[in-house]
Structure formats: structure tokens, C-alpha cells
């Protein structure tokens, strides 16, 4: 830690000095400087950097999947079924002779899609409901929070199961079910943050200038609640990946032949005693990605939410 501080002090001039100056000349410079300092805090945490690396790897796998493997993830080749890991098939083949590595690579697209779709729906809904309830107070607050508490008191996975059973199995419905069951904690966080800043002077100043309630909530309250929410979302992503994989494993998420990791484990289950690699490999992929989100979330918490 002290080495880095010395380094930045020793090298005067250049970009680093511009970023770390105590007298920024513009808002942009101040903002960039803050981001730079946050980045320094973040990179001091080795595990967090590992987590970020895993995330980048996941994105790279999803984008470059066709370039990384010569095999089609869906094409069956029954002459090649259940082959152990070898030079031709690094992670072996499954019961239909499909290359497991290719399926894992293409499956990262599904994982990424699930994570992104849940991340743009549930926290946004929670943020809006929470800030509105916290800022307006009164009966609006009471009603919204009652509903939130009801959803919070439910077991998430069981509720998601019930939703999927009603909507029918499939990856879209699994995403909807996960989103429906995961917004309440965000609402709680956003409301708590809103209540602490609702009475601040700068909010009063904006109100006296004649800003509408919508403008105050969207323009001034929401941005201040975002950082603690981002931390929570990142930490929750691991759980969301596990839930999605669990639904896939139960046959309620992505349907075959889609290369979803949880569903791959389910099909590999019957061969697990002899052809162990079929079920083992996708599980390692789920584990590594979910670990990555947990590490990244821990690191982000140190940067964005010093109170926690």
C-alpha cells in the first residue's frame, strides 16, 4: 500500500499527477480523479482483480465462442459419444457426441443473458419503488413496503419454481421468475438510503427551486442510491446464476438441446458414475463464474460502500 503511494508521489507530472491533483480544474477532472482513486483501492484487493478477470473471461468466451472452437455445440455425432477428455475433445463429449467444451463456451452466452436481463430489471424496479416509497412517505410508503415485505418473506427458489410451473418451462420464463422474486431487497436498500437523504439541505434547495417530485427522485435521489445497489447486485449475481442453473437442472429453465450449464449437468447425471466428465465440467464452469461474481462484489463493496 505504502509503496504505491510513494510511487504516485514520486512521479510528478503526467496523467497520474493530473488525476490525483488536489485542485482539479474541472468537474470532469475531479470525477476522473475519483474513479482513478477507486480503481487503485480496487486493484489493491487481489481477489477482486481475480473476480474481474473471471468476468472478462466470461464475456470473451461469449463473444468469441465460434472462433475458439471448431465444433458445433448442437450437432450430434453418435459415433463420438461419451468420449473421455483428449486432445481432440479437451473436456470430452456427451451422450450425443457433442463436444462439451464447445457447449460450455456457447452456454456462457445463456448465462450472460440471464445475468444481464435480471440485472437490468429487478434492481431498476426495486430502485424506483424504494425511492418513491422513501421520498413520498405516508400511505404510499406503507402500502409499497407492505407488499415488499410480503415478497421478502417468501422462499425465493420455491416461489420461482411455482412461477415457472405456471408460466411453463423455458429460459425466458425462468428469467421472469427470478426477476419477480429478486426485487424486494433492492427496494429495502433504496428506501433506507432515500430516507437518510430526503431531509438534506441540497434536496430542500432543489425543491425550493420548484423541481417536481419526479425530477427530484429521478435526478437527485436515484443517483445517490445507485452505488450501494450496484454492490448488492454484483453479490446477488452469484445467487442468480445458481438459481438459474438450479432451474435448468430441474428441467424448468432452458430446454434441450440448448447448452445451458445446469441442464447439461442434469443430462450428465445418469452417466456420472462411469463418464464423470459429462456432469463435472459444466458444474466447474458454474462454480467459477459464481465465485467470480462473489469476489468482484466483495472488492466493489470496499470501493463503493466504505460503510459496509
Amino acid at each position, binding site marked *: 500500500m505504502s509503496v504505491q503511494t510513494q510511487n504516485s508521489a514520486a512521479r510528478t507530472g503526467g496523467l497520474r499527477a493530473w488525476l490525483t491533483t488536489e485542485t482539479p480544474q474541472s468537474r470532469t477532472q475531479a470525477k476522473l480523479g475519483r474513479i482513478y482513486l477507486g480503481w487503485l483501492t480496487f486493484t489493491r484487493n487481489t481477489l477482486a482483480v481475480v473476480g474481474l478477470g473471471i468476468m472478462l473471461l466470461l464475456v470473451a468466451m461469449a463473444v468469441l465462442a465460434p472462433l475458439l472452437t471448431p465444433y458445433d455445440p448442437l450437432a450430434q455425432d453418435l459415433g463420438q459419444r461419451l468420449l473421455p477428455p483428449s486432445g481432440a475433445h479437451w473436456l470430452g463429449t456427451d451422450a450425443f457426441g457433442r463436444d462439451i467444451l464447445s457447449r460450455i463456451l456457447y452456454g456462457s452466452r445463456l448465462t450472460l443473458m440471464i445475468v444481464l436481463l435480471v440485472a437490468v430489471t429487478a434492481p431498476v424496479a426495486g430502485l424506483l419503488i424504494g425511492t418513491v416509497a422513501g421520498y413520498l412517505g405516508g400511505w404510499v410508503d406503507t402500502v409499497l413496503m*407492505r*407488499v415488499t*415485505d*410480503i*415478497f421478502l*418473506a*417468501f*422462499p*425465493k*427458489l*420455491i*416461489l420461482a*419454481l*411455482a*412461477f*415457472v*410451473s*405456471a*408460466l*411453463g418451462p423455458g429460459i425466458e420464463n425462468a428469467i421472469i421468475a427470478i426477476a419477480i422474486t429478486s426485487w424486494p431487497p433492492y427496494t429495502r436498500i433504496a428506501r433506507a438510503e432515500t430516507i437518510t437523504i430526503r431531509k438534506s439541505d441540497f434536496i430542500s434547495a432543489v425543491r425550493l427551486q420548484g423541481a417536481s417530485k419526479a425530477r427530484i427522485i429521478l435526478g437527485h435521489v436515484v443517483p445517490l442510491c445507485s452505488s450501494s445497489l450496484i454492490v448488492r447486485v454484483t453479490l446477488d449475481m*452469484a445467487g442468480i446464476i*445458481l438459481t438459474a*442453473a*438450479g432451474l435448468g*437442472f*430441474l*428441467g*424448468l429453465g432452458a430446454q434441450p438441446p440448448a447448452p445451458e450449464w*445446469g441442464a447439461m*449437468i442434469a443430462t450428465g*447425471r445418469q452417466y*456420472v*458414475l462411469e463418464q*464423470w466428465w459429462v*456432469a*463435472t465440467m*459444466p*458444474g466447474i464452469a*458454474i*462454480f467459477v463464474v*459464481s*465465485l467470480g*461474481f*462473489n*469476489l468482484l462484489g466483495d472488492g466493489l463493496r470496499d470501493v463503493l460502500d466504505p460503510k459496509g
Partner: protein
Amino acid sequence: MAAILKRPGVPGRRHVVRGASLLASVALTFLGLLLVTFLIGRVVPIDPVIAVVGDRVSADTYARVRQELGLDLPLWQQFLRYVGDVLRGDFGTSVLTSRPVLEDVLRVFPATLELATAAVVIGVVLGVPAGVMAAVKRGRWQDQLIRVVGLIGYSVPVFWLGLMVLLVFYARLEIAPGPGRIDVFYEGVVDPVTGIITVDALLAGETDVFWNALYHLMLPASVLGLFSVAYIARMTRSFMLDQLRQEYITTARVKGLSETRVVWRHALGNIAIPLTTVVALSYAGLLEGSVLTETVFAWPGLGLYITNSLLSADMNAVLGGTLVVGAVFIGLNLLSDLLYRLLDPRAR
């Protein structure tokens, strides 16, 4: 803690009001749960009339059955009927087993209770000492090791871990039993009294059956308990760090008390209350986590019942099971809340 409980406290008006508002909020939450299961039951793309009479009936019969089922009533009246049915213990009939859902659920629930209880015991026995150790050795290798184990517990897919331990300990090393609650050889030896095989075996004095059931319980309970070990250890660590900073700890040390006594008696004694609520919450989480674990280990509990019903689109059974898990979940939340208020004089 006994001293706290003995404190003379006449339940004043404040307590009554607070108790009433707590009860009201629980009742409201339960009503919300009913509303959600009711609405899920209504959006299912299966026509409940056809499910009862089949699709080769005349329009007259169809209309009559529809009326008998109360499907011609406005939605809110249907909901009231539903609430009434549930409160009378009528969850409908399972299509799969053609028995009342409540009967089915009561039959399979003890197996889940046994599994989740064993898992929470593992969570407390390993998690609390690990958390204390991590707090005392903060920043040292013991702390790092416990943190890494905790991260693994949070990140590993439990159904995959179950398959892997079966592969290693049952198939390869042959030191653990296979799936199921008990060896076929012992099946039916003990009459079910509580439905919890280990307890029933002890009641009947069948020690062989008891050990066999415990042997079968070991693997699934450990897999399920890993998450709770991670959660309890993390919470214990952070509670302990808070306590170890306090001045009374310094006083105790200055008095010349041994470090063991300071940590395990003074500090740990003071976090007993928040820890109790953490354990209650993690127990609720385990009931839910048992769905996937039971599927992997063919453990005939509520989780397996719900998933089997799901796959055969047996909606009464799915919603009945969901309701029971939800009710237990709400109950445990309430219990942890009450325990906290009861044990901590500051919260009264």
C-alpha cells in the same frame, strides 16, 4: 441470559399493542402468500374443469362442473373460497397420488425436517467456532482460509456438489451410502411415529436402524449444510469483531482473565442473541435449499415432492407444497424476530 429472562416484566399496554401489530403483519403476509399462490393457480394454462372431467364431455356437463368448482364466480369470491379452503386444511387433491395434498405434504415433511435440522446442526457446530477463530486471528492465514471456504460455500451449485460427493465417496471410495434415507434391508423395520427415521429408530430401540439412517443422512446434510456453515461463520466473525473492539473486553483482559475466557465466555456470550436469529434465518434457507439436494440424493421429502409434482403439472400439489414451505418460512422469520425481542432487553 437466565438473569435477563427472570427480570420482572409485567406485559404493559405497549407490549400488547406491539404484539398485535406483529400478529397483524404476519397475518397480512400469509394472506399475501395465499394471494400469490391463488393467482399462480389461475394463470396456469391448464383448464381446471378439463383436468377434472376430461375433454370429451358435453357443454352442459362442462358448465355444471365449472359451476361446482366455483369458477363462474367473480375472482374475489373465488379467492375468499380459496382462503376458506386452505384455512380448513383443504389443499385439493393431488393428481399424481390421488390423495389429499395436505396428507401427502404431512407425510413427506418429516424427511425434509430431518435433513434441514441435521444441516443446521452442522452449520452451527462448524460455523460458530470458525467465525470466532477468524475474528480472533483477523488477517492471518486462519482468517483467509475460513474466508475462502466461505466463498466456496456461497459459490458452489449445491446439486452439482451433491453429484460430486456421491461420485467420490459412494462410487469411487465406497465409504458412503448411496441415495435414499435408509438401506432397503432396513426399510419398514421401524413404524413411523414422528416420520423422522433417526428419532423413530431410537424410540423403537433399534440402534442398527438408527446408525444406518444417520449414515445415510451424513452426505446430504453435509452438502446442504455447507452454505449454512459459510453464512453462520461470516456473521459470527463480524459480530465478534464488533465485540472485541469494546472496552469491556479490554477491562476483562486487564483484570488478567485468560484469553480463552475473554473470547469464548465474555465476547461470545454477548453475541448469542443476534446469532440465534441468524441460525433461525439460515434454517429457513435450508428448508428451501433442500429442494435441489433432495432431488440429487433421492431424499423423499417436500422438495422432491414439489419437483416431482412440477414435472407432471400437478398444480394442487405444487401450490400446496409452496404454501407449506412459505408458511414455515414466515413462521421462522417470526420466531427469529420474537426470540430477538424476548432475549435482548434493549429490544423490549
